[in-house]
């Protein structure tokens, strides 16, 4: 089955109170549990924000050079995502709606390229 990325950029989250964010956690967890129960869940997680470590690995000189900070500064950056394994676009959109509703902010849906799967990683 094709895999889809349901993701949001940190800049789409919006300003909310601590209390509001606290109320979304259980809702997001419930959506993730629904994905697991439906057998479509691959992964879900939120990235650490500005206080988390960020580094980059550049191999273009021949040996990998690891340095601190992003490879490129961008106005928008990834906030978090879920990866789901579903039959088609319609199912991906349905789960995107479910997770967006739970989180309370917009999400975007993108499909992964098909690739040779050699493991149990997507089960």
């Amino acid at each position: 089955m094709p895999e889809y990325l349901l993701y949001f950029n940190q800049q789409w989250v919006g300003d909310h109170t601590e209390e509001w964010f606290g109320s979304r956690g259980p809702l997001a967890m419930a959506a993730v549990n629904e994905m697991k129960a439906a057998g479509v869940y691959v992964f879900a997680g939120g990235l650490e924000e500005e206080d988390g470590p960020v580094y980059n690995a550049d191999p273009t000189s021949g040996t990998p050079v690891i340095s601190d900070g992003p490879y490129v500064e961008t106005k928008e950056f990834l906030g978090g995502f879920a990866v789901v394994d579903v039959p088609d676009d319609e199912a991906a959109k349905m789960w995107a709606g479910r997770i967006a509703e739970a989180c309370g902010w917009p999400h975007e849906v993108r499909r992964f390229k098909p690739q040779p799967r050699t493991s149990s990683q997507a089960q």
Partner: protein
Amino acid sequence: MTEYLIAFNDEWVPDLTEEDLREASTRVQALRAEMRAAGVLIFTGGLDPDAPVFSVDASSGTPLLTDGPFAESKEHLGGFALVDVADEEAARLWAGKVAVACGWPQQVHRFQVPRQRRET
């Protein structure tokens, strides 16, 4: 164990021949096997730049689905690896390996904890 994202944007991929891409794909598959053997692999995938993009905005209370990206941006996520490793040193090590296997730069971010653990 801590989960890390090792990701690249499409814009960081140099112009490659079909041959270059095939070689990169072979290296990435070998690396995936190495990650699995080391017990650090959660997921790897490359996004399809030709696949349709959808967005969903639920800020009105009900999810509103539209075709196309939510926001136009200059940089686009190209693909990533998700790893579950002991520490930052290990994350750096695997980021270096992913960068070498692909042949283009990667950026590393840590996931928040606590979060619901995946079921394995």
